């Protein structure tokens, strides 16, 4: 029996979909059977991040409403035989699916998969309610910005009220150089404010743009620092104790020079 984890944030644009794609690919690379569910009906994007946008025939709305079996709608990833996507519908809206339908679907999916990751839409309305309905665990993604943290805190409160397990936090687009200068909230500041457990920190990384352009998750790119962070987060999700990666070498003079010449840890 697998587990259902929702990836959510409140605020849009903080990296929910990127996180979902990377953790899915990460877990699959360890041999787990993984199903990614795009719950952002009307604004689907998880298919793009996985490079599967041309293979969609049936979608979440078809499955939730019983028009087809989920197996018919699943799309196998390009990289792994054990990673599947259940895409969102693009022409419907959030009301095309109800929370009880999502609960039933997740119940069915976790019979078949070790991990079911549900990519939540931004906001706290029906799309969010749908996404969290079938999940027992939640990962909250935030960036070190006031607006993102405020929205994350709101979502923590909502999940608490639903009596979900204590959510785990991923801090995305972290810039240690700015933190050193005192211009960005540090990890400890954010944990203190939100009072939840840290699952991982993903440094800002230009390489993410490149891997996304190609439709390949960064977690599979050995040169990507964000990819390294996602590899660590994957292992923590599987229950391993993994120390935080060294975030500090992103904008030191030496690594900048190295980067210009194309060497160095990227």
């Amino acid at each position, binding site marked *: 029996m697998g587990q259902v984890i929702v990836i959510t944030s409140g605020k849009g644009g903080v990296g929910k979909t990127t996180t979902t794609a990377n953790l899915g690919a990460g877990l699959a690379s360890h041999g787990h059977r993984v199903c990614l569910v795009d719950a952002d009906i009307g604004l689907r994007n998880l298919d*793009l991040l996985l*490079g599967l*946008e*041309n293979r969609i025939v049936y979608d979440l709305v078809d499955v939730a409403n019983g028009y087809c079996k989920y197996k018919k709608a699943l799309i196998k990833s390009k990289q792994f035989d054990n990673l599947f996507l259940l895409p969102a519908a*693009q*022409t419907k809206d959030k009301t095309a699916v109800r929370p009880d339908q999502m609960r039933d679907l997740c119940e069915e999916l976790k019979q078949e998969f070790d991990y079911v990751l549900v990519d939540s839409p931004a906001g706290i309305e029906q799309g969010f309610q749908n996404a969290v309905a079938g999940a027992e665990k939640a990962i909250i993604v935030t960036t070190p910005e006031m607006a993102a943290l405020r929205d994350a805190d709101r979502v923590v409160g909502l999940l608490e009220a639903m009596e979900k397990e204590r959510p785990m936090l991923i801090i995305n687009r972290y810039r240690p150089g700015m933190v050193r200068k005192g211009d960005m909230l540090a990890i400890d500041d954010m944990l203190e404010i939100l009072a939840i457990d840290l699952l991982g920190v993903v440094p800002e990384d230009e390489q993410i*743009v*490149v*891997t*996304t*352009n*190609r*439709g390949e998750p960064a977690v599979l790119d050995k*040169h990507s620092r964000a990819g390294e962070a996602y590899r660590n987060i994957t292992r923590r999700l599987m229950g391993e104790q993994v120390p935080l990666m060294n975030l500090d070498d992103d904008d030191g003079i030496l690594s900048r020079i190295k980067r210009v010449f*194309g*060497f160095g840890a990227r």
Partner: protein
Amino acid sequence: MLDLIAKVFGRESPSAEIAKERLRLVLVHDRSSVTPQFLERLKEDLIRVISEYMDIDTETMDVRLSQTEHQAALVASIPVRRVKRVAP
């Protein structure tokens, strides 16, 4: 380093180019997902408004979305039987 060499010799196309092509394809698809029901409603509204000004042939009129080089276009071919006299 191998990546760099590959880039210098142009073996691998830049990712932005790949992104542009992928995006173009997916948008053509998204935009064309206008349902037949939607077009039918639009057509009925067009008939209602235009009929106040002109007597049109609703049987042979044609309303559809098409893709030009740069954008989607709504193309309507509406045969006019006669222009109504509108009060000045």
